[in-house]
């Protein structure tokens, strides 16, 4: 019985009131440093502090304050949101300074860029918004057979916008980039391409504003977006002397055309034909369950030029014929992966017959994209498969089919102060390679200092092949304020 009592007492002693032995040791309370938190920086967005309130930085320290705050006063005025406030904002939304070396280019040894854009945004009332923007692009190319300096002034997004309920109307110069895929979204039918730096920049920097009337209407989860381009402007092309020009007079090549047939372009006259309207397009999108999708119908002129050849006069004319586009796209998350897909049919695509005469055909395009974060951490991987097929049996100078992959891998490290990334693209049925590693220091916010490389290689008629002598190493500073 004694043993039984002993067992019982031991058992009861072992019965945990709490798992005391697993309790972490008390934290050593360090002396809190004096509060040196600066006030909010965004002066136009400073929080409203009502009378009698204190900012958190002035709030009593935590220790022992569980119940020493006064209960809320029933008579105190309930705080309210700030409501609409007229705003005027002025800023520089892009400043790029970049120095580059071209180790293999016969045209130049160095290629440097200065690019800046500024804006004024005024929202006088809840319904109206006015924006004016301007940009300046400067390039220098030195140390080769085609030294060149260029400075371009242009307008940026400059528009009048009206909002009311679910309606938004915008008239003026706008940058509108439709689609879901990165790099070359198929639904991107109403933007104006900027080719001055070819593909060195990301998609948003490879587009420019152009005059458009836009109507955006929301119906629940659906959005209708209609755009009309009253005055067409072709892509912003670099000067023909630039290494990024789609016509290379040094090597006698036209981008996308077999170089064996274009040796004569070195002395050819180059014209531009971009009169008239750019056409119109509508896009219906839906976000939500079970996936996001979009449908696009467009009858527009593409800003990327097609060079019409006139052999008797040895001239190339950049033309932008109307074509019809019907496309569908979708985006969903499954298994921790984001899947994106675009499918498009384009009618009236200009192509060049063996006689150099222009013909028209239609094209089918498909993009399948996959985005994920390995291990759920800080590295992002975006992989895209692309397929392009011209539907013609005739002999043409362009590639009839192109299958390839492109994408981007990027990661951050050192508490987000550094970024490393790689953009890439490659062809499956032809050799076409673009690799662009980049290392950036972004700890000096909002500035970005970077070193990057752009490597091109490939067969004739591919983009990588056309620029295979233009691989570039750059050192740059990018900022906005």
């Amino acid at each position, binding site marked *: 019985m004694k043993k039984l009592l002993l067992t019982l007492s031991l058992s009861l002693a072992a019965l945990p009131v709490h*798992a005391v032995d697993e309790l972490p040791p*008390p*934290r050593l309370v360090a002396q809190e440093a004096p509060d040196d938190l600066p006030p909010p920086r965004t002066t136009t967005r400073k929080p409203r502090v009502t009378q009698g309130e204190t900012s*958190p930085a002035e709030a009593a320290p935590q220790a022992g304050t569980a119940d020493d705050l006064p209960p809320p006063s029933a008579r105190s005025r309930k705080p309210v*949101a700030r409501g609409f406030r007229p705003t005027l904002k002025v800023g520089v939304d892009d400043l790029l300074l970049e120095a580059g070396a071209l180790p293999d280019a016969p045209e130049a040894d160095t290629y440097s860029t200065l690019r800046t854009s500024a804006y004024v945004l005024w929202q006088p009332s809840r319904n109206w918004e006015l924006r004016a923007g301007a940009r300046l692009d400067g390039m220098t190319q030195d140390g080769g057979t085609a030294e060149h300096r260029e400075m371009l002034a242009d307008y940026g997004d400059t528009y009048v916008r009206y909002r009311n309920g*679910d309606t938004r109307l915008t008239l003026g110069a706008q940058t509108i980039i439709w689609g879901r895929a990165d790099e070359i979204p198929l639904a991107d039918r109403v933007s104006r391409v900027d080719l001055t730096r070819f593909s060195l920049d990301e998609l948003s920097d490879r587009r420019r504003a152009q005059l458009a009337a836009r109507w955006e209407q929301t119906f629940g989860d659906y959005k209708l977006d209609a755009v009309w381009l009253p005055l067409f402007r072709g892509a912003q092309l670099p000067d023909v002397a630039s290494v990024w020009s789609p016509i290379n007079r040094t090597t006698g090549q036209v981008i996308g055309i077999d170089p064996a047939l274009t040796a004569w372009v070195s002395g050819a006259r180059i014209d531009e034909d971009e009169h008239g309207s750019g056409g119109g397009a509508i896009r219906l999108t839906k*976000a*939500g369950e079970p996936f996001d999708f979009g449908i696009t119908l467009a009858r527009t002129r593409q800003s990327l030029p097609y060079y019409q050849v006139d052999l008797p006069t040895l001239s190339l004319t950049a033309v932008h014929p109307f074509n019809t586009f019907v496309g569908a796209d979708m985006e969903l998350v499954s298994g921790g992966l984001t899947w994106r897909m675009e499918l498009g049919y384009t009618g009236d695509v200009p192509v060049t017959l063996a006689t150099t005469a222009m013909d028209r055909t239609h094209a089918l395009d498909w993009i399948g994209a996959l985005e994920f974060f390995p291990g759920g951490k800080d590295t992002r991987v975006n992989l895209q498969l692309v397929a392009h097929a011209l539907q013609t049996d005739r002999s043409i100078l362009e590639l009839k089919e192109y299958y390839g992959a492109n994408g981007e891998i990027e990661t951050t490290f050192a508490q987000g102060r550094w970024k490393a990334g790689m953009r890439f693209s490659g062809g499956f049925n032809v050799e076409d390679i673009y690799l662009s590693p980049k290392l950036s220091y972004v700890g000096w916010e909002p500035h970005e200092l970077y070193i990057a490389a752009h490597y091109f290689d490939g067969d004739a008629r591919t983009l990588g092949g056309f620029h295979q002598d233009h691989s570039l190493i750059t050192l740059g500073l990018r900022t906005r304020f």
Partner: protein
Amino acid sequence: MRTPVNHMSLTPLLLLVRFLLLALLLGAASARADEASDLAQKVYDRPNGRDLTTLGRMVLTEKDRAPRIRELVTYRLDKLGGETANLIRFLDPEDIAGTGLLSIDKADGSTDQWLYLPALDRVRRISSDRKGGRFVGSDFFFEDLQERKPSKDRHRLLGRQTENGILCEVLESVPLDPKDSVYSRRISWIDPATALPQRVDYFEKNPAAPSKRWLLRSKKRNQAYWTVTDSRMIDLASGHETRMVVDAALYDQKLPAKLFTSQALADESLESEYRP
């Protein structure tokens, strides 16, 4: 020396006592587990209004380096059916200003997320499985920003301990599905009066030493709701810390549901007038 008789006579009694003891132990343990789960539920259910808007700053601090500050506005709306919508908009610095993140936490525990990138003027659907990714380079993982349902963890009370001058209940939470969380366990110091955590230790690979620690620095009662107005998340290995300051908070201003759509995500002006 025990005789067989003695043994025979004691065995049923011992068995009975042992059975009773075991039942008592299991009953007590079960009661403690219930108490722990109740506390976790109490923290989860802490009154925080039907909707909430905050204007705040995230301060990233590293030894011998200038702090980096992100200003942001957040909106939260509790919808019917257990769904919660959150919208975060960055206001500063300029390189991320205008970027928005919309999250819809559904009743079944899944989350839909969209990211708005102003440079492209495009809304992108993104996976919410990026639990261990650092939120804008801070010490907060994406998982830290999500409200974790208590039913996803097994809870245990470890005892009582003073933290921030308050006698707190110490609660251990271990994910039922280890793949469901970046953390192998969390230990929280809960103020029983307010149901506000005063401190949370986060454990990753090493079950004995926390990798991160969240500390409440100050709280304030706004419109009858307790609001954490100043807190810190510390990376215990590097000493790097992220301080989260709420400069203003507004509860129950009847935020419209259309604020939590991809259309509003892409148009900052639609939500800006609801800011404090």
